[in-house]
């Protein structure tokens, strides 16, 4: 049972990664930015897993698992931060955060 070889997975992964990058750079809602970050991490995961398959090596899978946990952690902190921001009645728009600049 052979499906597409690893390069196809990788291409998907690359596209997904680029979508994530686009999302982070283009979107202004911090929530969607966070979601885009998740997409980037998942793209990486996909790459890791397909490489694990390529090499027949579990390290990649384990790495991917750890990444999931890390992604979850980032989400937790990110959401906490967004909640704190919302509590301060600031507009949820990353473009509005530019007191610090120059």
């Amino acid at each position, binding site marked *: 049972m052979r499906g597409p070889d*690893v390069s196809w997975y990788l291409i998907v992964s690359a596209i997904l990664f680029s979508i994530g990058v686009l999302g982070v750079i283009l979107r202004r809602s911090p929530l969607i930015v966070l979601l885009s970050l998740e997409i980037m991490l998942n793209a990486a995961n996909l790459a890791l897993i397909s490489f694990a*398959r390529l090499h027949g090596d579990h390290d990649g899978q384990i790495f991917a698992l750890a990444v999931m946990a890390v992604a979850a952690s980032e989400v937790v902190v990110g959401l906490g931060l967004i909640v704190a921001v919302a509590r301060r009645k600031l507009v949820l728009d990353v473009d509005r955060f530019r007191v610090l600049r120059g």
Partner: protein
Amino acid sequence: MGDILVWAIWILAAGACLGSGIAVVSFGNPFFSALALIGNLASLAVLFLLASAEFLAAAQVLVYAGAVMVMFLFVIAYLGGRADTPFEGGPTWVSAGAVVAATALLVEIVVVIGLKAGDALSQEADIERSFGSPAEIGRLFLTDHLLAFEITSIVLLVAAIGGVILGTKTRDEDELDRLGESA
């Protein structure tokens, strides 16, 4: 025949994955984006499965699409999913730059993969049936990657503390609010 089925599933999953990914970044409303991400994660789980990562596929669905995204949705709901117009605001060169940069990255990675594809990438290793099974993963976690495992837990712990700290209101904030009201 099996191959074709696998291909078909793969194409479906990959398409769904990319489609939902695009959806995530293009929906105006974060709520829909989050939902799209769930779809994205689920379709990724399928791809994982096809790449012989059963345990990870399961974890993806359970942990990610389940737990994390639920939290996400909860927060979005708490904040009231305010929609914004996607791809607008900020300096215009940012959007152009983003597209250029993302495309460049994509092309580069694809080219790199393409350069490699001829030889190495098609030579998939022969794998055991147990490849990617929970048992294997679990064993490695307790032996070779013990440290990574432990650290993952620490990261989660730290993040949890962070979530708590940031999520709760402090007295400094209270005071600020009072000042705001009196003013």
